[in-house]
């Protein structure tokens, strides 16, 4: 499954981009995506980042489907 993933905050520095394209096995849940990111970009592990599916925070158990909007959310710092 080809996934385009939106990235924000410090992830834009890590990936030098606002989006990354990844080729991932299917079926895939959020926890597996997280593990894949941490394995391939070890500096992301300490960030304790969240993953959003269709603009909402997702649990690790949530299955990722084609055409869903996936985003990596580092610790927030609004306000």
């Amino acid at each position, binding site marked *: 499954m080809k996934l385009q993933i*939106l990235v*924000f*905050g*410090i992830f*834009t*520095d890590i990936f030098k981009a606002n989006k990354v394209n990844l080729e991932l096995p299917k079926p895939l849940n959020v926890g597996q995506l997280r593990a894949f990111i941490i394995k391939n970009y070890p500096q992301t592990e*300490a*960030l304790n980042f969240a993953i*959003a599916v269709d*603009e*909402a*925070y997702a649990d690790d158990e949530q299955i990722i489907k084609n055409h869903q909007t996936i*985003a990596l*959310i*580092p*610790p*927030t*710092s*609004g*306000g």
Partner: protein
Amino acid sequence: MNHKISIKISDKKLNLQSCYKFVKDDACGGIALFVGTVRNESYKKEVTALNFSSYKPMALKELTTIAHRALTDFDILKIAIHHAQGDLKVGDIPVIIAVSAAHREAAFKACQFAIDTLKQTVPIFKKEHFIDGEVWVNAHP
């Protein structure tokens, strides 16, 4: 509930008076407001500039969720939550929250709930610039 909620993420300067006007109501006896301002110091270093970016569609949803929860959990009348994005300098306003209520305790509680929750959940990201570097706030353990 839409006439009770004003949510905004803006590239322009935020306006205290317009937040106040939105929440003002003949049935309200008190309005609590919070205005965040950019401090000249962070991590004990002088801040020269900073930038807010957001995952805007999701941030708007999360802000709306906070406003609905405030209306549900506290005895308030209206709430406005406005956040700035883009480049800001010392003294600029990243966030304004205004809450009206018949009685002031509910307004204060809801206002604090909103800013506390915003900081935890809304996908907005602050980068602070110092003379000797820059840092994504909260993203460095």
